[in-house]
């Protein structure tokens, strides 16, 4: 089973991520059995079969997918994933922040794709509570060590999803270093 970091701890995970091939048609994709995370296009194209398997089907968004498109579905979704096709593609940070703040999503928000430890803290600060590194990217031992990256910065300046106020409101500043 795949490894997942959930709320700062390593857990096993049985969700399966489904990608749509370049020529694949969203309406034709056969949904595998078990718990699956499907692309937004499939989610939109197969509403009925998906509704029949409530709780088993989740959706993932690409950087270009506007999270506003799933606002009406949020209550029914067991989890929402945001895919980082490349770790340098930073759109998903904004999507996550929007889901958490503007759209009030409180369920599991998972980063998938090129999820690297040096992005961990930025992910969690933008509202991800689940981080799923690419398959085989880290050994178990490396993943254990990678948890340290969640705490790289202990007093960030900005407000974010996890720190709702900027440092200057959270702390009394100005005391000498």
């Amino acid at each position, binding site marked *: 089973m795949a490894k997942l970091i959930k709320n700062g701890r390593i857990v096993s995970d049985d969700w399966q991520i489904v990608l749509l091939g370049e020529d694949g048609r969203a309406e034709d994709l056969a949904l595998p059995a078990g718990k699956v995370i499907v692309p937004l296009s499939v989610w939109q194209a197969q509403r009925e079969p998906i509704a029949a398997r409530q709780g088993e089907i989740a959706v993932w968004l690409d*950087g270009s997918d506007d999270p506003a498109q799933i606002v009406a579905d949020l209550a029914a979704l067991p989890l929402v994933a945001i895919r980082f096709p490349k*770790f*340098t*593609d*930073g*759109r998903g*940070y*904004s*999507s996550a*922040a929007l889901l958490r*703040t*503007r759209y009030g999503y409180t369920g599991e928000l998972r980063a998938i794709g090129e999820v*690297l430890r*040096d*992005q961990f*803290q*930025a*992910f969690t*600060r*933008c509202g991800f509570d689940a981080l799923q590194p690419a398959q085989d990217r880290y050994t178990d031992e*490396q993943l254990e060590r990678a948890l*340290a*990256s969640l705490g*790289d*910065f*202990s*007093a*960030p*300046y*900005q*407000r*974010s999803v996890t720190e*709702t*106020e*900027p*440092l*200057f*409101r959270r*702390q009394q*500043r*100005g*005391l*000498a*270093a």
Partner: protein
Amino acid sequence: MYRYDAYDQRNVDERVAQFRDQTHRYLAGELSEDEYRPLRLQNGLYIQRQAPMLRIAIPYGNLSSTQLRKLAAITRKYDKGYGHFSTRQNLQLNWPALENVPEILAELATVQMHAIQTSGNCIRNVTSDPFAGVAGDEIIDPRPWCEILRQWSSFHPEFTHLPRKFKIAVNGAEHDRAVIQAHDIGLDLVKNAEGAIGFRVLVGGGLGRTPVIGKEISPFVPWQHLLTYCESILRVYNRHGRRDNLYKARIKILVNALGIEEFRRQVEEEWIHHKDGPGTLTVDEVHRIADHFDDPAYATLPADDLGFEQKRVENKPFAAWVKRNVRSHKQPGYAAVVLSLKKTGVAPGDITAEQMDLVADWADAHAFGELRVTHEQNLVLADVKKSDLFALWQKARDAGLATPNIGLLTDIICCPGGDFCNLANAKSIPIAEAIQRRFDDLDYLYDIGELELNISGCMNACGHHHVGHIGVLGVDKNGSEWYQVTIGGDQGNDAAIGKVIGRAFAAAEMPDVIAKLIETYIDNRHEDERFVDTVRRIGLDPFKTRVYGEQQTQRKVVNG
């Protein structure tokens, strides 16, 4: 200047630890080249032609003497005993070993310095006016706002992987000395009719491959909303800026594609959600930061210093230096001094460790222990008593830092170019030197008057060639180095992009080309008209005719 509190210090210390670990993992093979690249870039570390290059942040160009001494020590210990001030008010080291960079950052952190976000696709070092706080035409001191922006932009979790780099500049004076019109966000501090402080906000300016002058997105954003407004711009850009093509990824391309009205609409729509929220600045926080920029303890002095005036009459070289390198100051009896890093034979912006130590000493003796770096790649001692000027000039002259050429043709802005930079099409430093040698007659230089000559080794325009009165751009033609010339560019309030005069030139032709441009100007100028004013009035044709008309025969020879 700003001094760190315990939180600022903790942030830079934690950054050092983070980068030490990243570099360790890279060297151990746990991080691939591709994975390490953005991480090292966000700490200013490039892999260059000769060796790595480390770009150290000098926030809005402010430095203390202690920091400068530390930089000198670092260049001695880890480099070749010199550094290079860039056009973004930063310091670049050309020869550090990659393994040593974490240690260099640790040393920097001991003097409240870092290399955070000096490169990479993130919000870069905020730049500003080197005469902030002392200029007579200042409306509002930009430095506290720069520091507020520095803190907000450091490790902003949402904006660490933008489509492309993002540069912010702040101006608070009548005359813009921060080139705000050529930045992704340009902030102009203004007071509205009620006397409230706010920002006129420009967006989408930039040089590089597609030079664009920034467009006004808001005439007045009240100061409380500075960060939420910037955040809204950044979010729209992060989500919608192009990521498919490196050359079309800057915000200026998005702004042009949407049109400023639509871009503004999207930003304002976003802003509704942030405005008046917890990101809103507080009076307390602004005061806390502004307190760091209070005036130093100026002495009460008469406006004129008799000894200084006398020396000026007696000593011609001193008078020339005062005329070119000394600026007026808001405080009676004080002046701001520009130390020229444009001595002929030295790469523009380069400074040795010995010179750094000396400048630090002068800053302590004459300028309250502080100095500034200009985007023209010179240094400024901002608060010098007029009565100290003669002594300071003597020391600076002996150290090779008193070339009286500020604002003149030989005060060339020049990027490192092909001698150091991987991206270069052509060398730029030797071109600068050849031009400086050609114009070594000071009287002629003074007669030519104010002239900005800017050289970039490639389209990335680190040498700001587009906004030079004369701009020189290195281009590659079938693998050899050529130079394209533009004229009529300008920075400041009348910022303009220069126009190309025609086909490119070989390196050896460049001094002649510049000489012909200057001759054309001298033949045509009206009284009190600068080179760029003449270009504006008479257009490009007379310059082209002079340069190309006379060149046809010569060219045959050049090309054999």
